[in-house]
């Protein structure tokens, strides 16, 4: 039992239990209107799931998140690598990078909608445009810190571009890619909400904003929590096993 409690599942369970307790206390402190308790939130979520409303909006949002994520990460990886390895690419790209990095999400979204139209491509493009510079910046740091010794080895043994990328560069970038992915997924989801708020007729962001207008905190929390649960699930069931696999070469801690 003791080992279960200090094991990975036990500790996470403790942590989640603490969270629920804090939540219940907060709901007593602030009252059910401003901070509805877990029971009422989950009841609402269950109702919305049963009605099919929540799964519909969730699916739409997830699709947008995935599309924007795939676009942003692949472009960010390419630009980050280029800017990290080549001084010329870096000097040329820097002003653009800083521009896009600091362009408010709102502006990018509005301009994308106006210039491209109020449609799905504009939405996804706007989200991706918001995320690309973040991914670029992170990957660029990784590319700058690449081990020159291994690069030299790869050159001597004639690895060529693809082999070097796959076997020498990407494994070194793994922690940077992991950081960019995790914080990127979160950022994308934040921006998808804004995108949905400004010009889509469905998705979780749309729903949350609707409920914000009528100040239904319970509904807002329900939609948020379902998404967070999905992310927790993806993290535990997909990302972490993948990461363990990618990191199996690291020396096991004593």
């Amino acid at each position, binding site marked *: 039992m003791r080992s279960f409690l200090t094991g990975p599942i036990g500790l996470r369970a403790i942590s989640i239990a603490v969270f629920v307790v804090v939540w219940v206390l907060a709901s007593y402190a602030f009252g059910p209107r401003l901070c509805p308790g877990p029971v009422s939130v989950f009841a609402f979520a269950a109702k919305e799931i049963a009605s099919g409303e929540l799964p519909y909006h969730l699916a739409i949002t997830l699709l947008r998140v995935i599309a924007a994520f795939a676009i942003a990460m692949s472009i960010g990886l390419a630009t980050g690598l280029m800017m990290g390895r080549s001084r010329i690419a870096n000097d040329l790209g820097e002003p653009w990078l800083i521009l896009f990095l600091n362009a408010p999400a709102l502006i990018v979204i509005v301009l994308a909608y106006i210039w491209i*139209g109020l449609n799905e491509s504009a939405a996804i493009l706007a989200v991706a445009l918001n995320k690309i510079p973040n991914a670029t910046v992170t990957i660029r740091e990784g590319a700058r810190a690449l081990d020159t010794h291994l690069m030299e080895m790869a050159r001597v043994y004639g690895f060529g571009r693809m082999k070097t990328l796959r076997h020498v560069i990407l494994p070194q970038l793994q922690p940077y890619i992991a950081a960019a992915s995790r914080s990127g997924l979160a950022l994308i989801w934040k921006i998808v909400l804004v995108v949905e708020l*400004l010009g889509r007729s469905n998705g979780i962001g749309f729903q949350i904003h609707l409920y914000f207008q009528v100040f239904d905190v319970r509904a807002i929390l329900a939609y948020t929590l379902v998404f967070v649960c999905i992310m927790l699930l993806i993290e535990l069931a997909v990302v972490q096993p993948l990461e363990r696999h990618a990191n199996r070469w690291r020396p096991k801690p004593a």
Partner: protein
Amino acid sequence: ADAEIVRVGVLKFGTVNWEIDTIVENGFDKKHGFSLEPVVLAGSDAGRIGINAGEVDVIVSDWLFVSRQRAEGIPLTFVPYSTSVGAIMVPDDSIAKTLADLRGSRVGVAGGPLDKNWLMFRALAQDRYGFDLAEETQPAFAAPPFLAEKLRDGELAAASNFWHYNARLETEGYRELVSGQDAAKAFGATGPISAIGYVFNEEWAAEHKDAMLGFVAASHEAKELLGTSDAAWDRLRPSMNAEDDAIFRNLVRRYREGIPSRPMAEEEADTEKIYRRLAAIGGEKLVGSAQTLSPGTFWSVLKEGE
């Protein structure tokens, strides 16, 4: 041929949705020779983007927006939709009796410093009591739902908010200190003015004249129905987000009060007066280069029709 489609941007829980829903449900669109396609949006920002991007044909906004866009060469135009406007709400037991009593207190303001209600209240305070609300109160500009909430928990002494938030507050022990219509009257309006209306592109409307005229007619018919029939409201109730009967009844009452009844030319004349006052206070930031209400802000086709 198929009936022409009119895409109208609506907020799901917004008041416009009630009218649009009624049109569709009762087949008023088909009756007037067009097909109405509601585009559900999450906020008024989305509406502004949508009309600029040409992805919706009609949204609901105010004549300030229309006039400014016209001045900059975008031929939007306006058909009155409702005379319901915002008001400053205070708790029933507040000692405040007039705007002057708000001096020094924290006042929430929906829609930002360029909101027409807020500007009218500032003008009114200037006229009647000789002070600038913006200077002598602490305005807190925030999203409308916050304001209602912050008024409830006492962080704000008063809040200038939109009518459907206020209708709710009225059932919870809050009262109107002063409303937009009060202010309008003080500036010489001869009756209630329609602050918001259906906004669309004039050029588009010229190409789809029959459909747009049909839309206006359908809107009238829906208003008539909602103005008289309680059954029509019962059907809408689930989408009104009214927690209890009192709120529901108050929303209905306020909606009915807000149905515009005056000829458009009369409204336009009143609006011009008010516009000048607002332009003086809001300055270029508010109106852009147009110091007076841009000609054609009210849809000329309707005026001719009358």
